[in-house]
């Protein structure tokens, strides 16, 4: 074994983590209608999982972590987010 190939250290970089991923059990997913979205970021403020990511004045959803709770769709003042069935 070459020098230092065996060295491994218990250090992690800050990241999203593997534990919070949603998996396959979500029933509804939020879909943003970009024609309606005004970029007010209310959904971003209220999302309990921090899966709404503001980008270019609008928002997009991180589906890997989104649990499909529907809070974003409820707080959207212009009804730009629709909960779509995944089943």
């Amino acid at each position, binding site marked *: 074994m070459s*020098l*230092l190939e*065996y060295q491994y*250290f*218990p*250090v992690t*970089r*800050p990241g999203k983590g*593997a534990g919070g991923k949603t998996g396959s059990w979500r029933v509804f997913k939020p879909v943003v209608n970009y024609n309606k979205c005004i970029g007010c970021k209310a959904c971003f403020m209220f999302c309990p999982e921090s899966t709404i990511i503001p980008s270019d004045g609008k928002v997009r959803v991180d589906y890997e972590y989104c649990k499909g709770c529907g809070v974003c769709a409820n707080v959207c003042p212009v009804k730009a987010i629709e909960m779509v069935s995944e089943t």
Partner: protein
Amino acid sequence: MIRKIISGNEAVALAVKLARVGVTGIYPITPQTTIIEKLAEMKASGEINTEIVRVESEHSAMAATFGAALAGIRSFTATASQGLLYMHEMIWWVAGSRTPVVMVVGTRAVGAPWNIWNEHTDFTSERDSGWLMAFASNPQEALDLTLQAFRISEDERVFLPMMVGMDGFILSHTKTNVIIPDQEDVDEYLPPRRQPYVIDPEDPVGMGNIFPPEEYMKLRQSIDLSIKNSEDVIRELGMEYNKKLNVLGDYSTLNVTYKLDDADYAVVVMGAWAGDTMEAIDKLRERGVKIGMLRIRYLRPWSEKEIRDALKDKKAVLVLDRSISMGRGGPLYVEIKSTISDIVPSIKGVVSGLGGVSVSKSDLLYLFEKFLQGIREDVLWYYPKEVGKIELRTPRDIE
């Protein structure tokens, strides 16, 4: 380089001074107390500018030392017996985080019942924690091994903490002639500290947080490999130490042999009673008995190759233990047996000197003669003096 009559504890304190240690977490426990007393004295007189952190327990002493080490500062602590046991949790945190830290253990019996005298059980019971473990046999070696411990633990092939054992009272409080190296030579031998990762606001990292099963096992294997690989590092750095700082002894090997090359019989020991063992061996050699000694200086890494080379073609081996792994004999006996059982026909163990029981040269001589005649038991509990029978008590009914 100066010569001084000092105790083992003072020798260790001087080594800490020479190594330019930045932070020392201190809590007093017999027989280690005088190390930190000496350090505090040197701090008060301005001889050193080590930050001395006074804490409320040994657990905190190791935690403070660990924290300083994580911040990238060379740090040191010392302990013994119950204190070492109280540190036990932090000892694993330090080893598991692969942070170089140096600790000196003035070995002592572990209660209950209360006993402050010399024994090795506290030291050997930390065997599996992932620390490198060296054991000194005189104050000079305590100083040398402590200095080397900083260099070895901070080597990029190792990056593990290291503890140096020293017989409580026998070495810690007995004054002998010790050669103290010059500061310039030590500075040349000990480069500034390096470590794999530090606390740094510019580059934040998570340390020792939760690890999933496979990653955890990978880390454990990495520590295991690191300990195995440290064997060559210790030899290499030992040779460098011989050249730059040392005028007595030889640190180019992990373990030390005495009159072993032509011997038929071998005695394996660790720690201060190696001195008496050598004298007893000289006596037997005068009578024409071919007997030699192997002194274990490093319990971890365990140099299987060196030990097998030293003990091959011996007729019988006797292992002296000043500690006991309950139900299995001494830890050293168990280790030696697992290492050489296929090449040595007879391996016997002796457990003695527990809790400060005094084992003199004549006791050792008697023991070796008994061994040459053939001991029946695999592990013999040897009491130098006549002791009364253990008093048996029948359990009392509780109403």
